[in-house]
């Protein structure tokens, strides 16, 4: 089972400090939710973990420093689903998902690569869309295709940037259920940035709360989502109601800005 160690990770973009001294460990199987207000550094953290953005500090996977690995080797270990999908893409769904095999492909496509694609499409329930153009799909269908592409990379670490942001309630719940299954039931480590606190509370096994580029709380959803944390981080008064092991957050009113 893969384990991730992030140590003293800091990131500065155009003289603006986005992340400061972030440190945490995570081990599969787990679905870690990164939550926090806009501009708190969720997307930046995900991009730094994948090495797309340069950062100070260290990110290691199973004890191996990621920055020392060639880009193609990183791609075999980490798959990333970015926020916002190009909705104008004329690519076929099959070809889009097949691109996930890029880190394993030579020029030609092997039968095993095609089988991986078919398996991922079936798992995500989009196999009947295989020969449709990406731009003809709904938001929920496109999101499933992107997750299928990440799956075909065969990487033990999945990074997802707000995978439910453009989805309606039903699609959002289905996609979250799917990601949880891929992580918790199939032994992967998934880290996702997410805005919807109730979805995060329901599906994530662990929550990391970011505020102004630093970690301010971390732990199981029931421990992290408290009226105090919600008030401090979001500036919102809220009531938390526990149903089973799942906390439900009811926002009441925004506090006056200082």
């Amino acid at each position: 089972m893969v384990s991730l160690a992030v140590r003293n990770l800091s990131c500065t973009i155009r003289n603006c400090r986005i992340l400061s001294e972030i440190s945490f460990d995570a081990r599969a199987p787990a679905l870690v939710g990164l939550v926090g207000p806009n501009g708190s550094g969720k997307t930046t953290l995900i991009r730094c973990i994948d090495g797309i953005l340069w950062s100070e500090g260290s990110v290691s996977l199973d004890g191996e420093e990621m920055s020392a690995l060639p880009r193609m080797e990183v791609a075999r270990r980490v798959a990333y689903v970015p926020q916002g999908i190009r909705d104008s893409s004329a690519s076929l769904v099959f070809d889009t998902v097949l691109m996930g095999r890029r880190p394993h492909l030579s020029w030609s496509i092997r039968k095993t690569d095609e089988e991986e694609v078919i398996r991922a499409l079936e798992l995500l329930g989009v196999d009947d869309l295989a020969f449709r153009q990406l731009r003809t799909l709904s938001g929920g269908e496109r999101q499933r295709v992107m997750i299928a592409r990440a799956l075909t990379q065969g990487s033990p670490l999945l990074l997802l940037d707000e995978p439910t942001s453009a989805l309606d309630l039903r699609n959002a719940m289905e996609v979250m259920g799917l990601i949880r299954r891929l992580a918790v039931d199939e032994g992967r480590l998934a880290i996702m940035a997410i805005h919807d606190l109730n979805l995060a509370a329901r599906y994530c096994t662990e929550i990391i709360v970011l505020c102004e580029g630093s970690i301010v709380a971390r732990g199981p959803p029931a421990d992290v989502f408290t009226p105090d944390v919600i008030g401090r981080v979001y500036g919102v008064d809220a009531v938390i109601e526990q149903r089973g092991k799942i906390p439900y957050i009811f926002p009441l009113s925004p506090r006056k800005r200082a």
Partner: protein
Amino acid sequence: MVLVIVLLAGVAVTLGSADLSVVEVYRAVCAGLFPDQFSASDTAMTIVWDYRLHRVLMAIAAGFGLAIAGTVMQGILRNPLASPFTLGIASAASTGASIAIVLGVGVIGGEFLVVGNAFVFALLAAALIYGMARVRGMGAESMILAGIALMYLFSAVTSLLQYVGSSEQLQEVVFWTFGSLGRSDWPKVGIIGGIVAVSTLYLIYRAWDLNALAEGDDVAESLGIPVKRSMTIFMLIASLITASIICFTGTIGFIGLVAPHITRMVVGTDHRFLLPASGLVGALLLLGADSLARTLLAPTILPVGIMTAFLGVPFFIALFLRGRGA
């Protein structure tokens, strides 16, 4: 497609103002290839081998190359308007040629004054686009904005040179900017053919990386492609192909923009198939346009840049409308 190009080339080589029959033309072609088995008159040999054949091959090589350059630029910049023309590379070549024609100043003297200037300015434009994009962070948008800004700058310089030049110089500059295959010869065909062939093989070899870059920088990076390095290499190759063609032919702007679009509508977006198919469409368009340009008002030869638009635009619009209707 290859068969259509071969057939069209077979027809194109028989076209021209000289009074040669089809049999005489093919006898001359065969006599050049197999001098022991065939013979032809000196006139036929001169017209076919010194005037027509290299022009036909030039049309195929230049059309293929411009389409490949356009395909690469549209792919990595994820913009359907990207082409050697809209990115300022063709405008820069025109400026270089205009400086040579009007001011007589150039990086290489002698008979290569105009060609050398056009080539160097085209590469200079690519380097400036790259430099400005690097300052701004090397995104696709930065490259396109830098290219458009340069296109206007170089066009303004060319206009200024036309304004201050004599009427003969003005005529020469305008003729150069129309684009023509009339300046072709065997060494030029060899140079363009060699550059286009080597570049195309390399680009097809890296077709997966082009596919990934077309999906976005983050996606490409997460799939293991070093984005900045790859974009630099691809832009450099596309610019080199463009520069090496338009320095000999003048501005032929339409092929690089439309051939990739036409091809994408038929074969899809996978660069393993898109690149060679787009090249073939480009070759077919330029060869067809040049054949029409030579015959429509014969013995007057129209500038091929005008004919490519006359031939390609209706075809493109028809495909576009059919695609929207489907």
